[in-house]
């Protein structure tokens, strides 16, 4: 064990599997990676942390051969490599376990594990079902999963599928020692599943190198032997997890003290003591018996994992999904959206998580996207007026500091932050707007854009708009809201008041989520 440690001055005391030297990658004007160097040693778990947009995913894609670096070198062992495709990387033993799983849902577990390496299961040139079965069980054992190899993949839980995916990666390198790239493997797992995953990593570590990407800092510190911290496309620190605390790691990651200015705390308002939204025992797909009150000008954030039900809760309030039971009151009147059109005409807006496929129309221009939800603002006698669209653009561009040359610019050419401002503006132009539901609105945005979105949300609250924020991170949930709700398995597990003087503890919140 002690042989695996890297000493402070960077001297490596054991065999290096992968070494990356000053790799850079640009996407248009965005510099996604700047002179990144790192090493992955044999039998080591390397943690990689950074905010969304820090460059973690791009770095993984370079290592796995998904994209080419613009400059820099890449060596496996002593051999300099230039990967031109995933299959090259695969041949060198690098396997990416994707966030969105890559297993074929309609096929059996065994077929998935042998996908692409069917040759291993042949006997005398024919598939041997017995051999496939035996080998599959063998691989599954290594990741401590007990499922029938013949069972259909989609019938297994997310956690089990993730293990099957790891088994698949190991199967591809039977006999060799692979390098597994795990991209946020825990983000959708339950507490017990995370424990299983960590046990499995410990078990396969003797002949496998693991790169572990996560923004849950506690986990990274627990599982990793060494941690790289990324910020703005650069590796800003390499740390020993034994000597660093979560708070210190977070500061390294965001590059500043958890400061008041990041979350625009000085703009905090006091909600008006009048109920805007009352939800009683609301039940819908994936959640039940939710009770939630929202005052005028109040920001309530909801924290929870992917299957916590918070996303569907937001969608039911907006009428994008049907409720099955419960009652909703909007401004004191009984309200059931039923359809998004009715929700919008009642002054509700919704900012979805998937900006590019659900928030905007990529093929259209900024002006068109701006007026999607409330085109009546841009018409003369019922006909769309290009002049009015331009006026609306000018107005909102200056109010939200939207950086776009004109309303006729293709929205595709805008940065994520500016695209998100267009999505916000399409709701803000509704003079009747009362309630805004936002599903992880800052996901994938850079730090500057995040701060601007926070400022806009604070100003909306000040104007008396109620905000339900499905926060992207614990910090966002804690610092952006007047109240925090935690959800788990479709139920509200806790409610905490959050004021600048008295913020809820990270650990308390995590208990409600995991």
């Amino acid at each position: 064990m002690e042989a695996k440690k890297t000493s402070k001055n960077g001297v490596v005391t054991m065999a290096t599997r992968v070494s990356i030297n000053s790799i850079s990658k640009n996407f248009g004007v965005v510099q996604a990676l700047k002179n990144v160097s790192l090493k992955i040693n044999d039998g080591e778990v390397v943690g990689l942390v950074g905010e969304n947009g820090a460059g973690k995913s791009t770095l993984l894609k370079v290592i796995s051969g998904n994209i080419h670096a613009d400059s820099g070198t890449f060596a496996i062992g002593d051999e300099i490599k230039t990967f031109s495709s995933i299959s090259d990387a695969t041949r060198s033993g690098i396997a990416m376990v994707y966030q969105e799983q890559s297993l074929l849902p309609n096929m059996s577990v065994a077929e998935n594990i042998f996908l692409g390496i069917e040759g291993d299961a042949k006997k005398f040139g024919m598939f041997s079902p017995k051999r496939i079965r035996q080998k599959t069980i063998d691989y599954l054992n290594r990741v401590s999963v007990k499922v029938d190899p013949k069972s259909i993949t989609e019938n297994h839980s997310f956690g089990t599928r993730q293990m099957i995916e790891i088994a698949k990666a190991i199967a591809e390198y039977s006999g060799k020692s692979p390098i597994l790239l795990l991209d946020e493997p825990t983000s959708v797992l339950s507490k017990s599943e995370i424990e299983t995953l960590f046990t499995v990593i410990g078990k396969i570590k003797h002949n496998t190198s693991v790169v572990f990407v996560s923004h849950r800092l506690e986990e990274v510190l627990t599982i990793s032997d060494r941690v790289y911290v990324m910020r703005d496309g650069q590796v800003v620190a390499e740390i020993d997890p034994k000597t660093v605390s979560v708070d210190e790691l977070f500061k390294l990651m965001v590059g500043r003290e958890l400061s008041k200015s990041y979350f625009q705390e000085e703009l905090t308002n006091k909600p008006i003591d009048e109920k805007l939204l009352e939800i009683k025992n609301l039940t819908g797909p994936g959640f039940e018996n939710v009770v939630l009150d929202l005052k005028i000008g109040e920001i309530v954030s909801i924290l929870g994992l992917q299957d916590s039900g918070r996303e569907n809760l937001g969608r039911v309030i907006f009428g994008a999904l049907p409720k099955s039971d419960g009652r909703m009151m909007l401004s004191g009147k009984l309200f059931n959206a039923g359809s998004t059109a009715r929700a919008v005409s009642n002054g509700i807006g919704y900012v979805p998580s998937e900006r590019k496929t659900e928030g905007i129309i990529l093929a259209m221009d900024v002006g068109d996207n701006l007026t999607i939800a409330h085109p009546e603002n841009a018409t003369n006698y019922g006909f769309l007026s290009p002049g009015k669209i331009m006026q609306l653009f000018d107005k909102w561009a200056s109010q939200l500091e939207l950086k776009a040359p004109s309303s006729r610019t293709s929205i595709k050419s805008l940065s994520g932050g500016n695209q998100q401002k267009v999505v916000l503006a399409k709701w803000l132009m509704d003079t009747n707007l009362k309630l805004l539901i936002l599903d992880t609105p800052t996901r994938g945005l850079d730090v500057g854009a995040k701060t601007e979105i926070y400022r806009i949300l604070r100003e909306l609250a000040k104007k008396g708009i109620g905000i339900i924020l499905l926060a992207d991170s614990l910090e966002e949930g804690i610092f952006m809201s007047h109240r925090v709700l935690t959800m788990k398995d479709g139920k509200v597990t806790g409610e905490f008041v959050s004021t600048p003087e008295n913020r809820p503890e990270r650990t308390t919140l995590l208990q409600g989520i995991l």
Partner: protein
Amino acid sequence: MFNLLKNEKKRFTSTGLPIPALVALLIICVFTSTQSPQFLTIENFNAIADQAAITLIIACGLTFVILMGSIDLSIQGIIAASAMSVSLLIANDRTNFSLGNGVFIVGIGIGATIGLLAGIAVTLIRIPSFIVTIATWNFGLGIGYMLFGGGQQPGIQDKEFIGLGIETYLGLTKIVWIAIAVAALSFMIQRYTIFGRYAYVIGGSEETALLSGINVKKFRILAFIFSGATSGLAGTLLASKMSIGAVNSGEGLLFLTVSSVVIGGTLLNGGRGGILHSVIGVLIMTTIYIAMILLDVSSFFQKIVQGLVVLIVVVIASWKQRKPLRTVL
């Protein structure tokens, strides 16, 4: 001024200008005119216009359905129903009945109603438009056969009605003027109405449309109604052109219109293209047809050539648009 022009260029993100299709059309025209001296004559252009008119009318309606990412295959069925109804309701040799110009309302109304049924089935019952409109196609044919009832095809006797395809106004037949009016109206709808904008939004991402509070079902149904109405109008005009009521008046028009729309550059998955594209697409298909007659292509080969040209032009016209589809990891 310069800035305005620059902006105007950027404006066409989803609607765009059908430049590739326009180039293809020019190439076809130049090629044919070098091979046949008759091509560059007024008579020939009139022939192209006459030939293109009815295809264009249908293509205009179809464009909105395709922009939304659906398809309408019921064209020939609607034409059968409307052509038969119209020929029996105007002065003819089988019934003692004449509605005069009222038959336009009947023809268009039949098309709109069948379109409404298709729209309801697609949006409320959630059956894919491909299947629904195959069903309404047969439904329309069935109405046509029922009205026909065997025996002799009804001959239309209303002189004014038959004259629509013969009498000219400013050098063009009235049918051509009707087609131009439909195309101009459709372009205005596409450009200046919320329905027109939403066709792109729904085709671009139905999810975004729904999550922006757009009543997607309503606009989809409207598109099917409009598409049905244009087919109904086409059936009415075909009855005038043929001066008889025939169930098979629309034969071959499904291929012509769908390929025209696609050749023009409107993507079948929706969200890109538009009326201008379809106008050019219709002109390409019609010019190829006329060129083959001028160049004396044997009628046995005409269909093969037509099929090949459709493939080639689609590849050229949407090479750039389809780039993402070709890029595989």
